[in-house]
């Protein structure tokens, strides 16, 4: 039978299946951070259960960590306890942790690919919804809750229900001003934040194949914002090239065996998906979200929608409520929306390619009066690389702040946050109410769009620069 990539990975990890019970799926790699794991370790201790396979885990500190004054103790006492708890849990269990002082530290979903810890065909989980990122490598990667973190720690498996499969085929040529972020946002705009619920999405088509590995990571990272369990891109030469030589990539004879296996897991010709969606990259403009859900997104050359435009009553209500929270009038040109803040970073857009794209636009500009603009590299490796390329100087010369790595203003747990009413052009992944600070207003955009907004003090159609 012809099988999709998802079905092949599923079959290769099925441990046990019996009538009336959810199948048990083997988990190859488990990623951890400080926010969603302490209660899982506590559960293990209470039940007197050991960690089953220490080497399959990789942990980092990212959500709560400050992006300034890293040589000082964390000021927030509760965050400090959470970080210390993580360090103790990892050391008690002999688990690999890239702590705040490590040159390998950074956001978990940035650090893991940098180290080649995830390969095609693996099953990968983390107590974090953006685990979907690793689907860029053709790994089945998805977010789980803390109870499931405990389940994986103790059994190296999960009880899983098989998902349906959706193919999102993006044909055509993407404009040079558009990125994977714009593709991802326009897909979410098209199918909605619940459009992928119950599905694993495989992204196919010319426009996807042409994306760099960084771009594929951005795309799969946002699969969760369309409700999908995971996103997948078929591994190819770019994938192998990216992985080769990294710390946890297969070495020596194993490399050839691994590549042969990786090539075998791609979707068979003629395999059927439960649903198919086709989009055209040529139609995609740089995207800007205008509301409080990632599906409330539109091209930069368009106007803020009017609730009356929606035929569905529920969508009308959501639109009106979002405009109210966002402080926006219907029919305002997107390019007339003024901003107070710019955030470049996060597991969505905190990689070197993102910083390069933003620096290219920021070079020779000055951050507009009254605008605060920060760059938070996704990891220390990204930071170092950017500094070697002189990107930090470009940002600093333009009036940006150059920070230490972490999740920072993507979810604003570490003290980096918007004040009520402030409006931010953000390269992160969620524009929910209060996500970047209570009362804060978030517009999701690509790194280049964010950099252009910083200089202009409002959104700009970068195709016209």
């Amino acid at each position, binding site marked *: 039978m012809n099988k999709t990539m998802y079905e092949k990975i599923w079959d290769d990890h099925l*441990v*046990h299946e019996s009538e*009336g019970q*959810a199948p*048990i799926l*083997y988990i*190859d790699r488990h990623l951890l951070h400080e*926010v*969603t794991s*302490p*209660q899982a370790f*506590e559960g293990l201790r209470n*039940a007197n*259960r050991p960690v089953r*396979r220490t080497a399959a885990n990789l942990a980092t500190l990212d959500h709560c960590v400050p992006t300034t004054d890293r040589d000082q103790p964390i000021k*927030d006492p509760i965050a400090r306890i*959470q970080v210390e*708890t993580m360090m103790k849990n990892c050391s008690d269990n002999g688990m690999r942790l890239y702590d705040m002082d490590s040159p390998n530290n950074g956001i978990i979903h940035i650090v893991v690919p940098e180290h080649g810890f995830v*390969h095609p065909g*693996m099953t990968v989980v983390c*107590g*974090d*919804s953006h685990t979907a990122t690793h689907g860029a490598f053709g790994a089945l990667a*998805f*977010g*789980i*809750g*803390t*109870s*499931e973190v405990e389940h994986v720690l*103790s*059994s*190296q*498996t999960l*009880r899983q*229900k098989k998902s349906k499969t959706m193919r999102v085929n993006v044909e055509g040529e993407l404009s040079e001003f558009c990125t994977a972020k714009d593709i991802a946002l326009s897909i979410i705009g098209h199918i909605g*934040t*619940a459009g992928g*619920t*119950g599905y694993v999405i495989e992204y196919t088509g010319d426009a996807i194949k042409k994306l760099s590995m960084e771009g594929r990571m951005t795309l799969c990272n946002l699969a969760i914002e369309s409700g*999908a*369990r995971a996103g997948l891109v078929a591994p190819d030469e770019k994938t192998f090239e990216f992985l080769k030589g990294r710390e946890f990539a297969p*070495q020596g004879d*194993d*490399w050839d*065996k*691994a590549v042969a*296996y990786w090539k075998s897991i791609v979707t068979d010709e003629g395999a059927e998906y439960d649903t198919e969606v086709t989009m055209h990259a040529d139609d995609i403009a740089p995207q800007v979200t205008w509301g409080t*859900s990632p599906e409330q997104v539109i091209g930069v050359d368009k106007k803020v929608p009017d609730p009356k435009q929606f035929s569905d009553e*529920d969508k009308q209500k959501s639109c009106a*409520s979002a405009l109210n929270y966002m402080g926006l009038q219907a029919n305002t040109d997107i390019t007339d929306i003024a901003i107070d803040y710019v955030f470049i970073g996060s597991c969505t857009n905190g990689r070197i390619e993102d910083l390069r794209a933003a620096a290219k636009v920021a070079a020779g500009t000055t951050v507009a009066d009254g605008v605060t603009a920060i760059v938070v590299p996704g990891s220390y490796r990204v930071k170092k690389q950017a500094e070697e390329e002189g990107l930090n100087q470009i940002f600093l010369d333009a009036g940006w702040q150059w920070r230490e790595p972490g999740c920072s203003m993507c*979810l*604003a*747990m570490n003290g980096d946050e918007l004040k009520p009413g402030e409006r931010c052009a953000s390269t992160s992944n*969620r524009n*929910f*109410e*209060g*996500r970047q600070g*209570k009362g804060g207003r978030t517009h999701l955009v690509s790194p280049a769009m964010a950099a252009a907004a910083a200089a202009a003090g409002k959104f700009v159609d970068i195709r016209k620069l």
Partner: protein
Amino acid sequence: MKPYTNHTSTAALMERSNVDTDQIIPKQFLKKVERSGFGVHLFHDWRFNADGSDNADFELNKDAFKDARILVAGDNFGCGSSREHAPWAIEDYGFNTIISTSYADIFYNNCFKNGILPIVVTRQELDQLMQEIRDNEGVKFSIDLSAKTITTAAGTVVKFDIDEFRKQNLLSGLDDIGMTLKHVDKIDSFEARQQQTHPWLWK
């Protein structure tokens, strides 16, 4: 986990869709290393005014909904972050049942680990249930998990579907991990096999 028992309770109405986990439990409360005590922060940013007083406009602050154990909400409930703090807060606040047309995947899974029953109904059924609450705030619904029914005070009966394994786990309050570890021999043999077929995964 406490076993789920059939009950008759007040149903609270939340007429919003895409209620995300950032709203259910905002990030400033995620720094705790314990599992308990999140109920007081449930829907914090909607529920409280800046001075900490109750926001009278927030639906769950209505007197009629004070003792509610059933939450009736719009589409795609629980979208966003994987934080299990969201169901912890919902359960700790006092809800053990949610009724909606759809849930985000991770949130849905998380509910079952915490004794919460997330019921999926059709749009038409949801409209009917919501209307009955609007007509009579404080109205009680009866939930029978064994029979998979919601029965309203007005006599409307809604049948719902749920995975049999999940239903049994909720009713028994069984520990998922303990159930899986009964199959440890199968995990052992899977690992032994994978070390042969995919040795690079083990180095």
